[in-house]
């Protein structure tokens, strides 16, 4: 019980101590006059603006506490250079798409999921927004000259969570509508009904909702939308004919995982016809061991982070039996409603 108390004490550090969200906005001098920079700064008239030479001067400082920074995230507005589009990582689900890429026009997320790999991947919990989105569009356009592209645009962030501030999801949607060989996935844990209401259906835009039981959301996925809100968004998206995917990925272990995931599934199927979905992905939590090393140092009281995972070739995952039980169970639930070819299971490597 004491651990829980310790964790609460840490989480309950008087809110008074902390500066407000985006109280400080760091702006690269080279993008200070760009229209998006000016537009965003106008939304935060109370913020302190600090001009910097390069975003890494702030983002890559050593010994930052991403957990503390998540309590009072600051914004860094910058220009993205060099790698603008990346090939999909092996631990990520490609959904059978041959030319799988992702891009990061924003780094870090305003949500605060304890198990999120970003906490281990980035040296900072602050948010970086790249305002040269047109350069990224140009890079994608170059790839499209070679082959069709499947592009995840909300991978190292949750773009829809900050759509009312940055408006970048709409820009991606507009870009995708002009390029039929481009298929984009917009993944979210947000409540984005307002945005969905304004969007017209399109064959090459996929909205992906990560689904978790309320027990997991309240314990680990801080600031994200409730399960009910996520289901409402999916209902709305399907009613509008938007291509919609749900991801039971990552599934997070807890002692009563079977009952909480069953309850969640029943809630979903009570309101949504799964056959209307584009597809469904299933996978238990897995992460690079290198990222996990950083996270374990930063989050000593997080059960999701401190779980004794199994390390296989530099990747942590649940012990084989737990991983198999959880994934097989979820696949069996989903299989009652949809054909197997619409279910994408994370390709596990059991030892």
């Amino acid at each position, binding site marked *: *019980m*004491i*651990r*829980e108390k*310790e*964790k609460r*004490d*840490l989480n309950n*550090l*008087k809110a*008074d*101590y*902390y*500066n407000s969200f985006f*109280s*400080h906005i*760091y702006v690269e001098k080279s993008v200070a006059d760009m229209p998006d920079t000016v537009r965003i700064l106008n939304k935060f008239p109370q913020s*302190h603006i*600090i001009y*910097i*030479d390069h975003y890494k*001067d*702030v983002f890559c*400082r*050593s*010994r*930052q*506490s991403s957990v*503390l*920074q998540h*309590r*009072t995230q*600051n914004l860094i507005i910058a220009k993205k250079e060099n790698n603008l589009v990346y090939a999909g990582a092996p631990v990520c689900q490609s959904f059978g798409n041959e030319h799988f890429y992702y891009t990061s026009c924003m780094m870090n997320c305003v949500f605060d999921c304890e198990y999120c790999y970003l906490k281990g991947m980035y040296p900072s919990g602050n948010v970086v927004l790249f305002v040269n989105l047109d350069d990224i569009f140009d890079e994608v356009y170059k790839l499209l000259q070679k082959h069709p592209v499947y592009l995840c645009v909300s991978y190292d962030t949750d773009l829809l969570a900050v759509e009312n501030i940055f408006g970048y999801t709409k820009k991606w949607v507009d870009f995708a509508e002009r390029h039929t060989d481009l298929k984009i996935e917009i993944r979210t844990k947000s409540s984005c009904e307002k945005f969905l209401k304004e969007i017209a259906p399109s064959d090459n835009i996929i909205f992906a909702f990560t689904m978790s039981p309320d027990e997991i959301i309240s314990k680990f996925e801080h600031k994200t939308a409730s399960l009910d809100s996520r289901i409402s968004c999916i209902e709305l998206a399907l009613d509008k004919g938007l291509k919609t995917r749900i991801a039971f990925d990552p599934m997070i272990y807890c*002692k009563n995982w079977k009952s909480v995931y069953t309850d969640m599934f029943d809630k979903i199927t009570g309101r949504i016809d799964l056959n209307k979905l584009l597809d469904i992905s299933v996978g238990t939590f897995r992460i690079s061991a290198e990222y996990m090393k950083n996270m374990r140092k930063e989050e*000593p*009281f*997080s*059960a999701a982070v*401190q*779980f*004794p995972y199994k390390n296989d070739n530099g990747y942590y995952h649940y*012990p084989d039996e*737990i991983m198999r039980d959880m994934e097989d169970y979820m696949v069996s639930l989903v299989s009652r409603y949809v054909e197997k070819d619409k279910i994408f299971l994370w390709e596990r490597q059991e030892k």
Partner: protein
Amino acid sequence: MIILAMAIYCEAKPLIEKYRLKKDESYMPFTVFANEEKEILLIITGTGNAAAASSVAGVCAKLDLKADKNFLVNIGTCASASASASDEIYICSKITDESSKRTFYPDMIYKNPFKEAEIITSAVLFGNKNDKNPQNTSDTVLYDMEAAFVWQAGAYFFAPHEMSFVKILSDNGDTEGITPDYITALVENHINIIGEYINRLRDILDDISCAGDEKAAKEKQLADKLCRDLCCSKTMEYELRQYIRYCFIENIDINGVVCKMYEENMMPCNDKREGKKRFEQLKSRLL
């Protein structure tokens, strides 16, 4: 612990009196005043780059600084060409070392009662500089002779959110009338707001420090015992400690499970092979 770094005695005097700090000769050749009960230590760094860096590094290296439980606060006077009024007090969110042009950014995580400004640390007195507003900016730019070097030395011991830089504007480059008594009076004028800020930092430290050492000790005690009785290899030990940590967080009754295994004569083990087998059994009983 709150570690204050101040350049000269006349700046530090009001704080030495407020916190009843006593000179601590154990940090010689550095000048240090401390109050162990209040967990405050004040370094008189001396003026200039080398003095600031060497004294902060020298004293911090002697301290047993536990991570996340300390703050370094550089307090001092400064000059500015652009500030409208002297006697204002600022906290610095951007610090530039004028000689190397390197810039440092303290993490502005915690609320504070001060105005914000950027500061440039120069090797020469502001009054002796030829160009007193090289950035030609209307924003308040402060000048001192220590901040960037307190940062650079402090960065070996503190995270960016554990260092802060509080500066009181004393002059616009004209040093006539800037006497030790004047400097002491300047700091004295702001002693309440500085005290409020230090109290806030101490409250934060108190909250952070509540994370129980006692529970961690119990966790370690169990891990040490099981490592021995399961004849753990290094790899097994690492895995076992992770299991124990998870059980403590999730309130899984690992002590009960372990006791039962002792009662069933499954432990202590005779060798690594048996230990490995028993560890597998322990894992399956826990999850």
